[in-house]
């Protein structure tokens, strides 16, 4: 019997164990070299974008990569383990320098990376904004973990993005504001800090989760309860909607140290500080519907006034939220996205139909939506092989994913 008790104790001990993940934050540009460089003008940035062959560094990146500027960084997307690089850059004389990090999206492998574009291999043309430049070559190196950048990376311009890609309005939507806590991106899901870096992963839009505090303030948070998956240890515990906004703001800290953002703060940040064009506002509880509608209407109107290409859609994931939305006066004029049936999409005249990806590409249903002037997104597609198939064989107008870097690669590499 003693041994049985010991066995049970061991079992409890094992059950209490967690999977530990090694997180490395590579030290980027410790000498602050880039401060000596001049930022590239926007006309130069477009010249750099395209599909590149990997001449050296195939172990890290595979054979081809996509080079794409986002709001404030140069991103490189590969088809190898969802690998990507995020680089800051500038030019000195006629040489262009980039310093940043690489990372595999599906695990936590990372390291530093740096490049330069020699003056005679595209540097001069890029700085001048010469769009006919086709001999661009990135020469650089990368390190693994906290190691020095001692492995060679060379990229050579292969082609511009295809006309189909350039004309496409395909949306790459990042889950939870840009990524989940389980992706170990260094910032917390559904935080302003996460939204701030979402574009670096290729996102053109984000999905965020809204709940309502006890005193009626909508805020960003996914789960129904306060838990250690999303928050640091705190003095408050239980259902998150049982607390006032002041309590949540002062007593709760997100997993990576951020303050929990209100929905207003998040949407204003998207409007004023990013170039994101779509927000999928996922309403997690029926109570938050009316407050969300008021806020998204205000921000959408401000976006129009500013001439900003931004549209915020009210996400309707469940029947109770659908019922609340359908009962809202004038709901047909509110941008909305329905995850339910296409009949329900029609019933509330939603702008977007958004089925779960596990139902398949459903091309005939998507075509019906297009014929009615609606869009179709699918969620939440992370499987690399299916991402490739959905992009090549599906007709969705956007994909919600935890791996926007992988979606970006397969989208931009299309012929």
């Amino acid at each position, binding site marked *: 019997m003693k041994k049985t008790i010991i*066995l049970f104790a*061991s079992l409890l001990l*094992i059950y209490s164990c967690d999977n530990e993940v090694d997180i490395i934050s590579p030290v980027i540009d410790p000498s602050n070299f880039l401060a000596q460089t001049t930022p590239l003008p926007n006309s130069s940035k477009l010249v750099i974008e395209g599909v590149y062959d990997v001449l050296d560094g195939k172990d890290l990146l595979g054979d081809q990569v996509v080079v794409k500027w986002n709001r404030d960084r140069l991103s490189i997307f590969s088809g190898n383990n969802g690998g990507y690089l995020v680089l800051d850059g500038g030019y000195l004389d006629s040489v262009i320098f980039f310093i940043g990090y690489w990372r*595999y999206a599906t*695990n936590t492998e990372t390291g530093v990376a740096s490049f330069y574009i020699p003056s005679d291999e595209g540097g001069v043309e890029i700085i001048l904004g010469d769009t006919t430049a086709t001999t661009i070559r990135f020469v650089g190196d990368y390190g693994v973990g906290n190691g020095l950048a001692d492995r060679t990376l060379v990229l050579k311009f292969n082609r511009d993005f295809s006309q189909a890609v350039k004309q496409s309005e395909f949306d790459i939507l990042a889950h939870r504001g840009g990524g989940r806590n389980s992706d170990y991106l260094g910032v917390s899901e559904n935080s302003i800090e996460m939204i701030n870096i979402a574009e670096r992963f290729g996102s053109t839009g984000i999905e965020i989760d809204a709940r309502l505090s006890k005193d009626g303030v909508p805020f960003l948070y996914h789960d129904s309860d306060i838990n250690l998956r999303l928050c640091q240890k705190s003095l408050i515990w239980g259902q998150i909607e049982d607390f006032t906004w002041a309590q949540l703001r002062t007593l709760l800290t997100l997993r990576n140290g951020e303050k929990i953002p209100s929905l207003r703060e998040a949407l204003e940040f998207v409007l004023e500080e990013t170039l994101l064009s779509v927000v999928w506002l996922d309403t997690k509880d029926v109570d938050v519907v009316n407050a969300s509608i008021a806020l998204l209407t205000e921000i959408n109107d401000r976006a129009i006034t500013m001439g900003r290409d931004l549209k915020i859609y009210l996400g309707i994931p469940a029947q109770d939220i659908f019922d609340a939305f359908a009962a809202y006066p004038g709901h047909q004029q509110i941008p909305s996205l329905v995850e339910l049936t296409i009949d329900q999409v029609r019933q509330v005249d939603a702008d977007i139909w958004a089925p779960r990806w596990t139902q398949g590409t459903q091309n005939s249903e998507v075509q019906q939506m297009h014929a009615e002037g609606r869009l179709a997104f699918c969620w939440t597609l992370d499987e690399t092989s299916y991402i490739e198939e*959905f992009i090549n064989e599906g007709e969705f107008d956007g994909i919600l994913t935890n*791996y926007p870097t992988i979606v970006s690669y397969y989208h931009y590499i299309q012929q």
Partner: protein
Amino acid sequence: MSKKLLLKTFLLQVFILCNFAFAQQLNFNENAFFYPHSFRSGQIISSLGLSTAKLPEDVVETDDVFRAPLFSYKLKYGLPENFLAEGGVETNLITFHFSAGPKWNYEDDKWGFSVGGDIAYWFGQLEQFGFDTKFTGWILYPNLSAGYRFNKFTLSLKSEVVLNLAETSTNGELEISNDLDFYNGWTIGVYLEQPLWKDNYVVIGIRSTFLKFYYPMWAAFSTFDRTFFIPEALFSFNF
């Protein structure tokens, strides 16, 4: 004290007494399933069990202990020359896992050893809750076992390597051949077997799995390229 509680206490006492009463007449070779003893040719021992697992927080997105029940039925059939054939089925209702394979046992006084391999075919299918997906796969499990026979119970250790041979998923009209790593990981389990009453043996086991892809969790479509520690607890009856 309620009548129900009294009855439970009484039954528990009866079980414990029976345990001691028959402790002197134990015949592990007729009743132990996990302890790697010799089998007579044609001898059959089965084990019907229920296991639970703590799934990785990163995949299931909850920090609570999440239990994933898995029902299992396993059978061993004695063959000549210390060989035996083992087969089994595991299911969590949306997933079925069928396995079979040979083993060779060696028994020396109170020690028992076994070496073998199982090949498994598994499939999962879900056509509700927004799913229209199927997943099938083949897995190879080379394994080693060692056990020690105490006076009143046996304690056995079993370790196996998990190798993904093939897997395919179907999503709506799309069929994809996935590319899971061939080497998926390994497991190690400890199993205690003892009689509950007469020749009715129970098994309490804990198994640590270190796997990238945990097949009962296929519907989560985990895309992490990381090895997860997934502890399992097993309770089963031998007969």
